[in-house]
């Protein structure tokens, strides 16, 4: 399996797995998707953890919503979820049980700060890529 595959997402009305073009309905163009994909693969490889990025609406409270998404990952204990809601201007970073030891909340907050700075200037891609890099650096064994 190529680790480079861009994952899938999900417009409300389409539940089938082959909804490849859906990802283009998101806020990113192809070049930005490739950058994010590359950053995700690099972060996974560097840290040995599973990184995941969600960009879309979160119900209130957003912390609970992001944790709910994190629970849906195959191995939540070793996973990090970055959930961004541009509409609500909220960012949530959720780290699993085993990740907390490598990325203390204080360091996660530092990454969050750098990400929100990029988001505030309207650059979702740069924020996501930068956040992935910072978190992966901190988690690197």
């Amino acid at each position, binding site marked *: *399996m190529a*680790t*480079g*595959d861009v*994952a*899938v*997402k*999900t*417009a*409300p009305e389409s*539940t089938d797995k082959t909804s490849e073009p*859906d*990802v283009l*309905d*998101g*806020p990113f163009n192809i070049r930005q998707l490739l950058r*994010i*994909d590359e950053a*995700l693969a690099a972060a*996974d490889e560097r840290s040995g953890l*599973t990184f*995941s990025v969600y*960009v*879309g*609406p979160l*119900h209130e*409270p*957003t912390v*609970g919503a*992001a*944790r*709910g*998404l994190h*629970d*849906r*990952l*195959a*191995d*939540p204990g070793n996973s990090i979820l970055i959930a961004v809601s*541009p509409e609500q*201007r*909220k*960012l*949530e*970073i*959720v*780290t*699993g*049980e085993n990740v907390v030891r490598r990325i*203390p*909340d204080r360091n*996660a*907050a530092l990454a*969050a700060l750098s*990400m*929100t700075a990029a*988001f*505030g*200037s*309207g650059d979702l891609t740069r924020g996501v890529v930068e956040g992935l890099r910072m978190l992966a650096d901190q988690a690197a064994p």
Partner: protein
Amino acid sequence: MTVLETVLTLVGVPLAVIIVVAGLVYGTSGGRNKRYRPGREYDFAPVWFLARPDDVTVAGAADYVNHTESASTPKALESTESAPRAGVKGGASGNW
């Protein structure tokens, strides 16, 4: 050089250049401008990325999206629903 040639050169050429440049500027960005701008309306589909897509159930993500859109169920119920699987989690929040 006749008057006609003079007019064509001094007026026609600049006009042609202006039209070409305007066409390039407005023609290429004519489609939907896919870009998030803070404070503007945001109507993009939710996306969820994983380096290994098999690690998440796609159906689960679709459920979640439908869930947020209906938003009719009480919030308290939603959060207790995911509580049992939640171990110790850490993280950080931010807004902009």
